[in-house]
């Protein structure tokens, strides 16, 4: 009699199952619009040139014995976390000048969210958190597994307009209990691609200040959305200027193409820098009990690039290439849909930003696309623009 006879089969996680199904499909015109990973115009994964250069440099350094495979500190490579935090907040940020911001290396964006969530539960005894409806499929589970007991949503996507339900969002935040943690997408909202305007961010900040809500930004696409690092960080920096204390999880998966190296950072902004040592000591305990210390390779690559003027410039060029290609595909798709006189409005395709587009297609339509046309997308209608290439654009439309 096994210990685990009662273990039920868990439902497969949609986005991974989609990839599996698409892989197995032999149809020549199949398109995978599921997982959010960048693809070249030829539909291939892309290793950024600066990443190749950095890895070559690191290989030389190992040979020269200037680096090795020893443990990183618990909170990560110091030089990396400083560079990552500065990249997010901007080098001239008052929070940095006043030494009241720091970074913790984490296992990419997911890990940063988890570290932050654990800290909020354990140290601040938080129980309530809000995520947008819809949001990235993993937000809820990260926070629940970290110990949050009360998961709530704030309205975000308006089905009827394929647009932003800003009034609904504000109303829901107005009704949030004091101290609730609010997950905000810094830019390129996943899955809708709709970001608040600056004025709307202002109003969001007003409500959060009034209701004493805690901002936890998820910044997975800095640079990748508009092609400009500063522009994409505007909302986070605005909240810093407004005087908020906050967490922000950063992922280098997309903007560096380092998906499988798990390079991430949790930026923490506080009001009182004297509390930082205590906070770090507590986060240390959380990290120790989860994975002890973070993986070195990805963070070393990012660190090398951010510190080297030439590589940094080259990297910014690569980000521009990636974001431009996506914007181009958006325009291409919208044009073709409109040319074909496809029923409905399609302006949202170009108004949305970032990797994903919320098409507004119903689950039934998505099923049709999947089964009949071999176009793989999530049943909520989300498509990854990265999967769209010049050669499949016509077929897709």
């Amino acid at each position, binding site marked *: 009699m*096994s*210990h*685990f*006879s*009662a*273990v*039920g089969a*868990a439902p497969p*996680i949609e986005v991974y199952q989609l990839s599996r199904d698409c892989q197995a499909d032999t149809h020549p015109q199949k398109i995978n619009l599921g*997982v959010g*990973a960048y693809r070249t115009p030829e539909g291939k994964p892309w*290793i950024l040139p600066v990443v190749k250069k950095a890895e070559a440099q690191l*290989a030389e350094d190992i040979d020269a*014995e200037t680096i090795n*495979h*020893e*443990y*990183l500190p618990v909170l990560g490579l110091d030089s990396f976390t400083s560079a990552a935090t500065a990249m997010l907040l901007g080098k*001239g*940020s008052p929070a940095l000048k006043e030494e009241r911001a720091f970074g913790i290396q984490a*296992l*990419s964006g*997911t*890990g940063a969210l*988890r570290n932050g969530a654990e800290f909020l539960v354990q*140290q*601040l005894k938080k129980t309530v958190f809000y995520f947008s409806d819809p949001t990235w499929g*993993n937000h809820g589970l*990260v926070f*629940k*597994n970290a110990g949050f007991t009360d998961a709530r949503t704030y309205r975000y996507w308006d089905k009827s307009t394929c647009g932003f339900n800003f009034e609904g969002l504000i109303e829901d935040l107005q009704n949030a209990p004091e101290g609730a943690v609010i997950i905000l997408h810094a830019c390129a909202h996943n899955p809708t691609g709709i970001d608040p305007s600056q004025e709307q961010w202002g109003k969001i900040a007003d409500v959060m*200040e009034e209701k*004493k809500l805690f901002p936890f930004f998820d910044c997975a696409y800095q640079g990748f959305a508009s092609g*400009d690092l500063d522009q994409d960080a505007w909302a986070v*920096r605005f909240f810093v200027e407004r*005087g908020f*204390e906050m967490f922000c999880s950063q992922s280098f998966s997309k903007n560096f*193409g*380092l*998906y*499988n*190296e*798990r390079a991430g950072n949790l930026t923490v902004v*506080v009001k*009182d820098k004297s*509390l930082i*040592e*205590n906070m770090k*000591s*507590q986060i*240390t*305990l*959380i990290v*120790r*009990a*989860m*994975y*002890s210390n973070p*993986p070195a*390779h990805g963070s070393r690559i990012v660190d090398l690039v951010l510190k080297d003027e030439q590589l940094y410039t080259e990297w910014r060029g690569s980000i521009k290439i990636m974001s431009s290609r996506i914007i181009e595909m958006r325009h291409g798709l919208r044009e073709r849909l409109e040319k074909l006189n496809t029923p409905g409005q399609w302006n949202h395709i170009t108004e949305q930003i970032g990797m994903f587009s919320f098409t507004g297609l119903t689950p039934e339509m998505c099923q049709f696309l999947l089964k009949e046309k071999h176009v793989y997308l999530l049943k909520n209608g989300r498509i990854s623009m990265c999967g769209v290439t010049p050669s499949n654009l016509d077929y897709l439309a």
Partner: protein
Amino acid sequence: MATCWSKMNKSSSILKRSSLLGQSIPWQPIKMGAPLSARASSWWSGVEMGPPDPILGVSEAFKKDTNPLKMNLGVGAYRDDQGKPFVLPSVREAERIIAQKGLNKEYAPIGGEPEFGRLSANLAFGQGNEIVSSGRNVSVQTISGTGALRVGATYLAKWFPGNKTVYLPRPSWGNHTPIFKQSGMNVDGYRYYDPTTCGFDFNGAMEDISRIPEKSVIMLHACAHNPTGVDPKDEQWKEMSQLVKKRNLFAFFDMAYQGFASGDVDRDAFAVRQFLEDGHNICLSQSYAKNMGLYGERVGAFTVVCKDKEEAARVNSQIKILIRPMYSNPPVNGSRIVSEILTNTALNKQWLEDVKGMADRIITMRQELKDGLANEGSSKNWEHIVDQIGMFCFTGMTPEQVEKITTEFSVYMTKDGRISVAGISSSNVGYLAKAMHAVTK
């Protein structure tokens, strides 16, 4: 009339803001919030200072010490005979081979590459073992050994149908307790180390194990027990296996030193394989930090041995659901190195030599330390130094003696008298013997 715009112009921080944004975004006046001082106090005022990590504390104090003869016997990372970190030749070669392959950076599966899991299970269970060939194991890549333990503890906290308490040997690795507690498991213990002999308290262990409530989880160090270096003998393992079976306990093995203990990967897996032979469906955490020197790459594996393939599929699906909200999928740099080494015949052979080299050096240092103490004229029994195995040695020194050896000789170790033998080299073993004799005579 003063508007909020005029207030903004006065504050220098706001002016900096426009330079941050550059020219691309037009400035828009925004309603000012209440001044900082009037707002609620910080969220973090109630955050207390956490307890200092004993091992890190040792390293930090060591760094500050200016004594040229200082020795760091705290942290458990292998050092060569020059006291330097060691990148294994087989690892270097694997890295070169991998660099040529031009592999991409796409997400790994949640549980890592299946091949990595399979290779790890085969390494632990023996090539050609029945478990892997019948597909009844779930083997996922994890964030080194710590990550494997955390995934395992989280899995047991949710799915273990028995008593959600894990029994750790006394003492155990300091991090076991927080890992299990934070996962929601209770923690208790069974006798293990005998301070009077500096050896294994077999009778005490057997007595305590026989009293552990049925259907509890028992943690066992597969080899090179951390922190004591004291391992049960083969015959003792066999008896423990029978008792654990009789008590209907669930065995969770932590194997962080396979190959690194005796120099022989099969020898070091004896206990794990004995338990499997006796029919236990164990779970296992493996680390490649020490035996492949991949510390900072964070490579490990967690395995659950299931009843059959069908059960394994269910268990696998549930484990993935626990991993995704932790870190989504694992880092591949280290696991690619491991897979390359374990599949490449020449590299595998090289690796086995590399790991034997490390183990041999440690065994040699143990012998030299014991001989050194005898040469100093110590009348104490230091047999345990060579009887114990692996990276660590529980010297038997008291906290006072440890304090003394640190302040008078700049020899740094943890208060429990544990030394990392990896930190000893042929050039300083004599000094260590002298220091140890001086504080213990």
